[in-house]
């Protein structure tokens, strides 16, 4: 019988949540790596039992863990993320040059067709690739080495490369997003990159329409329509219909267009989900009501989804990598909060229920749909 496996990264460990296709009863395992920050756990699309996890600590630095049995057991693999060549500098918060320094891996993106190939987005912003199951990592220096690199500045959470999207229809095309540099596209498997931020406007930078400098929080793509991209920017929900060449705003009637995650329904490329957050100075939902907003029109027109979600006294946040969808016939949506709840919906967001309520703060949520 089909089922799902939800991979949850938290401030103090990883958790694996399993259910059958009904998604009513859940088995919870964890914490894996208790006490460590788990920024991201993701499974290979080519091998459901191959998982990668980013494990880090202020004391002991970065580790990468790999599982070959769906998360039952793990093995520490390579953790040498050395920038290629002379690292150079980017801009610090005060505008001074600051050497590129590796801090942690924010996001792991396994290849679509090779379980041993996986990409890592790191802070300070850089892109690495392993082709041997995580044992060794090489930087793809064309991104960090873009001529705009020395002008990039960190966002409040650090200068992180947090989004990596591989285009299933165009081998070699991939997207990356960096806070606070913006969105970038490669058409040659990550060798060279260019900013794709035309149409973004950010009031917090000197030139609101600059080529780089935008605090992009998240990108999302539906695999059947890879030229359509959705973006949750620091402020503004944006859409591109030409693979990032240009963007237009689709915030429409959202109560606030600040937020972090954005995702697309598994079977409806025009159905999009966001979690509006009050503002960049109030990282909690408006009015203390936790509401996912859904657009069935590719943006602009949004409806609040509230059934089963707390509608009073709720002051959690939902971070950028903490929302995912499964691909069962009735699409499931999942998200985790900084309050340690993981909510799931098995009816495309119409109704929600907590799967777990009291985990450490949730940093990331991914889902695997199992045959």
């Amino acid at each position: 019988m089909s089922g799902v496996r939800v991979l949850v990264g938290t401030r103090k460990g990883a958790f694996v949540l399993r259910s059958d296709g009904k998604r009513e009863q859940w088995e919870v395992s964890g914490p894996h790596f208790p006490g460590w920050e788990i920024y991201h756990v993701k499974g290979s699309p080519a091998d459901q039992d191959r998982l990668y996890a980013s494990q880090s600590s202020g004391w002991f630095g970065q580790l990468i863990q790999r599982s070959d049995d769906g998360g039952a057991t793990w093995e520490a693999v390579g953790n040498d993320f050395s920038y290629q060549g002379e690292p150079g500098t980017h801009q610090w918060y005060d505008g001074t040059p600051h050497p590129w320094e590796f801090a942690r891996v924010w996001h792991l993106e396994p290849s679509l067709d090779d379980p041993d190939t996986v990409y890592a987005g790191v802070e300070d912003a850089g892109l690495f690739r392993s082709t041997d199951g995580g044992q060794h990592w090489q930087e793809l220096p064309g991104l960090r080495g873009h001529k705009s690199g020395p002008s990039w500045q960190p966002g409040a959470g650090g200068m992180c490369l947090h989004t990596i999207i591989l285009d299933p229809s165009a081998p070699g095309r991939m997207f990356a997003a960096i806070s606070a540099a913006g969105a970038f596209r490669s058409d040659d498997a990550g060798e060279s990159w260019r900013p794709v931020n035309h149409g973004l406007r950010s009031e917090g930078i000197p030139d609101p329409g600059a080529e780089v400098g935008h605090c992009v929080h998240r990108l999302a793509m539906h695999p059947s329509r890879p030229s359509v991209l959705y973006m949750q920017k620091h402020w503004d929900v944006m859409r591109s219909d030409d693979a990032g060449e240009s963007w237009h705003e689709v915030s429409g009637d959202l109560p606030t267009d600040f937020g972090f995650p954005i995702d697309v329904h598994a079977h409806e490329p025009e159905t999009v989900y966001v979690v509006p957050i009050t503002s960049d100075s109030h990282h909690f939902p408006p009015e203390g009501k936790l509401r996912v907003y859904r657009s069935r029109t590719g943006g602009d027109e949004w409806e609040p989804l509230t059934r089963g979600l707390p509608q009073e006294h709720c002051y959690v946040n939902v971070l950028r990598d903490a929302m995912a969808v499964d691909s069962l016939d009735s699409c499931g949506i999942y998200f985790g909060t900084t309050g340690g709840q993981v909510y799931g919906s098995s009816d495309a967001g119409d109704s929600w229920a907590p799967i777990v309520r009291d985990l450490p703060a949730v940093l990331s949520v991914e889902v695997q749909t199992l045959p």
Partner: protein
Amino acid sequence: MTGRAEIVRVTLPAHLRTLARVHGEVELQVAGQVTQCAVLDALEARYPMLRGTIRDQRTGKRRAFIRFFACEQDLSHEQPDAPLPEAVAAGAEPYLIVGAMAGG
């Protein structure tokens, strides 16, 4: 002591014992002069998963929140190639790798 392998006792912080899948102290054979660098080289050779968790893999520099203690002394700021106390080299006292008290 040069020319023969010494048995050095090393105590790891709890998270690194879990990572290395060991309990209690680790005993390491250290060839040549027993220095901090030689002990850490031997430790990482036997437990490769610890590489990068105690010192930078490229520069060898101690991670900021790691401390090295032995014989009731803080050796964290000693030169990596300086000889460790004889009691450590002889296995009478352990070499302590400690996570600094820094919140969390």
